[in-house]
């Protein structure tokens, strides 16, 4: 198991060629005295010491997990039966969402009305979670590439370009536009039919990933690079925060909101839900593509 240390080392310090270039940087970062935990872990794994203890630990963990699963299943069996109309969950809250949903929010899709109007504060938090997750992956993996690495990447790209994966490219050429349009449709009709920002954004993200796989990095970067990613994510989230600030403020202070509800059923209706769906869609699509891109090549 001597590779454990190497794996961690390469994970932190990057590939050897990067280390040569950024020696100065590495010196600065690793000046602090550290390693105690990793050293201990590696030593423990390498020596194989306390093997018996680890086996006992595994057995105890499995037994504990089985006991907890049993307890939880037994608890679930004593909960109200699924789908019973007299369940406590079918109370006045659900009734109001269904009865007054259209009049209150202007959205035909009750779920959209619920998550983007009744409980928009929670959804603002949820979109921020996605943004934070993407930022955390950027912190973990994003690395400015050196000129040498850029050259290597260029050469690699050329090699793969020459091979022309004909089936993939032609398939993608047909699939990507339809997938994109479908994603846009799902987002734009989020307040009218099942769907919305979260599901539509995932579809658009999938289309972007497919495009990137088929046509390579260079052609994707023409319209989607780190700068574009940052700008549109931040603009979308800021719009969400600002528009909802207005809406929360007017709601709490009982001021009349100037945002029109429109005629329920029309594409442009239901007040803020449509623009918010677009914002959520943008954030989700960018996060999806960002995860793929960062895990694949440590950049967007």
């Amino acid at each position, binding site marked *: 198991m001597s590779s454990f240390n190497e794996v961690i080392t390469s994970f932190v310090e990057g590939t050897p060629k990067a280390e040569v270039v950024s020696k100065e940087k590495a010196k600065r*970062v690793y000046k602090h005295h550290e390693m105690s935990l990793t050293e201990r872990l590696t030593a423990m794994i390498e020596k194989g010491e306390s093997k018996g203890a680890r086996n006992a630990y595994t057995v105890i963990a499995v037994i504990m997990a089985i006991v907890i699963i049993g307890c939880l299943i037994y608890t679930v069996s004593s*909960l109200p039966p699924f789908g019973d109309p007299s*369940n406590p969950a079918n109370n006045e809250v659900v009734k109001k969402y269904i009865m007054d949903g259209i009049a209150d929010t202007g959205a035909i899709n009750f779920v959209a009305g619920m998550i983007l109007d*009744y409980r928009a*504060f929670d959804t603002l938090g949820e979109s921020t979670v996605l943004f934070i997750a993407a930022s*955390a992956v950027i912190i*973990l993996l994003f690395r400015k590439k050196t000129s040498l690495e850029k050259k290597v990447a260029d050469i690699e790209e050329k090699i793969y370009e020459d091979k022309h994966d004909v089936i993939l490219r032609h398939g993608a050429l047909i699939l990507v536009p339809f997938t994109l349009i479908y994603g846009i449709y799902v987002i734009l009709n989020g307040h009218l039919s099942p769907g919305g920002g979260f599901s539509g954004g995932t579809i658009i993200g999938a289309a972007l990933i497919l495009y990137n796989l088929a046509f390579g990095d260079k052609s994707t970067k023409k319209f989607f690079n780190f700068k574009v990613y940052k700008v549109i994510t931040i603009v979308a989230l*800021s719009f969400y925060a600002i528009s909802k600030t207005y809406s929360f403020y007017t709601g709490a202070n*009982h001021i009349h909101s100037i945002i029109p509800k429109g005629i329920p059923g029309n594409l442009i209706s239901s007040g803020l839900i449509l623009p918010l769906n677009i914002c959520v869609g943008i954030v989700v699509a960018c996060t999806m593509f960002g995860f793929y891109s960062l895990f694949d090549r440590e950049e967007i």
Partner: protein
Amino acid sequence: MDKYYVINDIVQNFPFISIILSLFTGILCAAVKPKKAMVICFFNLIVCFALSLTTLIYCINNGDYYVYMMGHFPAPFGNEIRVGVLEALMATAFALVMILSLMGGLKHIFHDVLPEKQNYYFLMMELLYTSLIALIYTNDLFTAYVFVEINTLTACAIVMLKHSKETLVATARYLMMSLLGSGLIMIGISILYDITGHLLMSNLKESIVAIASVGKYRLPIEVVICLFAIGLGIKSALYPFHSWLPDAHGSSTSSSSAVLSGLVLKAYIILLIKMVYRVFSIEVIRGSKVLDILFVLGVLAMTIGSIKAINSRDLKRMIAYSSVAQIGYIYLGIGLGNDVGMIAACFQILVHAFTKPMLFNTAGAFMDEAHGSRKFKDLAGAARKNMWAGIGFAIGAFSMIGIPLFGGFVVKYNLAIAALSTNRAVIALVALVVSTVLNAIYYVPALMVLFKNTNPKQKVVVFADKNDIPFIVSNGVFMVCNFILGIMSPLFISLITMGLYKFA
């Protein structure tokens, strides 16, 4: 319309404004250069501090809590936040501690974090503050869960931002444990929704009291109480679930350690106290056995955390293990099950929030004198080279041991009074005495090592780095705050009492 929904004062908007403002400025930090992000972050935190302080004064004058509607729909249908004295007090204290912690470790942030990622540090700190105050103010369990998620991710990110092998392993462990806690909380919320049909705390309490009086769903309620206690216990490093804490708090940059131990652990405990009073109701909680469990775990944490701290040869790990012991005091207070105990627990939240960040920041300053080493053998005499940090560390250590004039003493005194009226007085008093002695056993030698005169020719230096004004200021303010907490404790205790009575 409910009388609480009438907003007749601009001040009532302030908690909402501080939540949204920190969220918005936090997102902006992703787009700007590190120095600008720092300015935005401090600007926002200072504004939030002012807003929270105004809210606190308003609540004290008003004498009552109020409910603020987040949107156009009243509570069971929409979201709402609830603002009272206790919430406003905690939000104010948290903003102040966050400003001071960031100032105290500013030099280390720019040293430890890679230049291209420094703006993300301030982004994570701002969003962390957003989640902390949202957790304090929220009156809805699902909103609480969303902000628990934000809190989990940002807390892991501020550990990870110091790029090193140790922090990566520590972050991985922290993330695993923390997600396990979130999962248990999520299961708890689901079961609770299934048996009551509500997510709003006040409605939940009504239905739980009704269900409990009929005797229905006894098992699910008991299981849910356990799930919340364990889930929040994992996240606030209660004794058997503390294994992630020493690595995460010990290895990260000093501001991160300060904020993690001073604030992040406390937000979950405040959520637990809210669950006890506002969701399950104190009567139902007293009827279950969970208070006994929390009491026992608190006692174990107080002793075993201290013993682990005695055994550590590493300054920051010692302070981190000391956090485990100090969290034990809070759980002891909750576990006693009476109001005095709960008030002492809340006061301990404040005391620890002001003391531990100071200890971590001064530890960071000592590490500079020892070329980044955290080992005691390298740190000998470090306080003589940086007397200002040395004084801060001494004050923090005295407060943690529980010497009169400091907050730690007031906490122990109140816990002892609370314990006397219960049938667990002997155990609690013995635990308090043993833990105090154990605290002294590791803090006093640490002080002796730090103030050791290793080189007689070396003059005592008051400020090691005169250019590091943020640290000098923050350390000074922390010292003053610790004295204020100790000397003016009746004021804070009366504020907490006022807030807690409105909780029930």
